[in-house]
């Protein structure tokens, strides 16, 4: 074996050579004092590099970090707080109304109740409208699909249309599978 280059020497010291290459290099080292010197040099250098002293951390460092931790992000909790708050407000308003018309709170509670009622009514009508819009959109899509199917049926024989649908379905399933299984990037914001 001729003298190894430095990358091979480092690979040997890193333990990255195959058993066969390692044995071959060790055989060479027995016969070559120059390479033995190179390996001894690099070995000492690597050992020294990996044994540099560790800087001291303040003993209370982890407590300091824990004291600064931001609240954990949890969207579910936010919704729970919102729902709980709305329920509490509604209960207070109903309790205020139940006390009767003679209390000073009654007109305020009545106004809040009316506003809440209007808000709920507006929201429900918005939801109904959205559902109607979605239904109309789906209907339009169905008509469009029917027209397309008829057009295609006129162009292609019936057997090939089924095959094309099968291929399309297969491609879409594979694309969906890929989207679900593809490796996700780290969420830390790459600086590249």
């Amino acid at each position, binding site marked *: 074996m001729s003298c190894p280059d430095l990358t091979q020497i480092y690979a040997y010291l890193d333990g990255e050579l195959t058993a066969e290459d390692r044995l071959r290099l060790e055989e060479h080292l027995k016969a070559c004092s120059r390479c033995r010197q190179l390996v001894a040099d690099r070995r000492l250098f690597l050992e020294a590099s990996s044994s540099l002293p560790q800087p001291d951390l303040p003993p209370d460092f982890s407590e300091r970090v824990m004291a*600064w931790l931001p609240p954990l992000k949890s969207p579910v909790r936010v919704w729970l707080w919102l729902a709980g708050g709305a329920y509490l407000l509604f209960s207070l308003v109903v309790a205020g109304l139940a006390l009767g018309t003679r209390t000073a709170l009654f007109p305020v509670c009545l106004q809040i109740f009316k506003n809440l009622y209007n808000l709920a009514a507006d929201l429900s009508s918005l939801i109904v409208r959205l559902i109607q819009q979605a239904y109309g959109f789906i209907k339009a899509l169905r008509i469009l699909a029917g027209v397309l199917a008829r057009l295609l049926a006129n162009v292609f024989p019936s057997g090939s249309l089924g095959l094309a649908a099968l291929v399309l379905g297969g491609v879409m399933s594979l694309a969906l599978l890929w989207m679900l299984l593809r490796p996700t990037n780290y969420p830390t914001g790459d*600086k590249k």
Partner: protein
Amino acid sequence: MVPDEDRILVGRSLKGDRRAFELLVKKYQQPLFNYFCRLVQEREMSLDFTQEVFLRAYAALHTYREKYQFSTWLFRIASNLLIDHWRKKKLPLVSIDAEPEDDEHRQPQLPDLEPSVSDNYEKKEMMERIEQALGQLPEFLRELFVLRHMNDFSYEEIAAIKHLPVGTVKNRVFQAREWLRSRLEER
């Protein structure tokens, strides 16, 4: 502690168990502090950066994916923080992201005759000289050298942290080693 335990601790932290996150902090605070101390070379700033990594990690914990090692995820946050710092200091960062054409294919030649470093130094003295020379090593090489030798990451893990091919990482660690070693010859 095996990486699976990290994942368990992350899961518990996400359920609101702060003690579990504290265990992760205790496990990784020293490796992160070593990393920043060698790369920033200012103790107070290194402490701030180490703390900042944990705060960012905690805030983004819900986005951590279990298929990655927690340590590489955490060091990627650290590396991004460092890149921001170097950008602000306007240090040249081209080399970090650039892929030199011959980076993976350069064949280092065996030196014909070189002074023996091991004859000149005892290990302790050599450690002191390496520490001094490390400060002069270009940042993009220093980071990989530190990840390899002070944080004991494998080449594959460094490649995952830095988003670089393994061959490029190996080559740059090689360059850093030989650069530092050549400084030891100047006695």
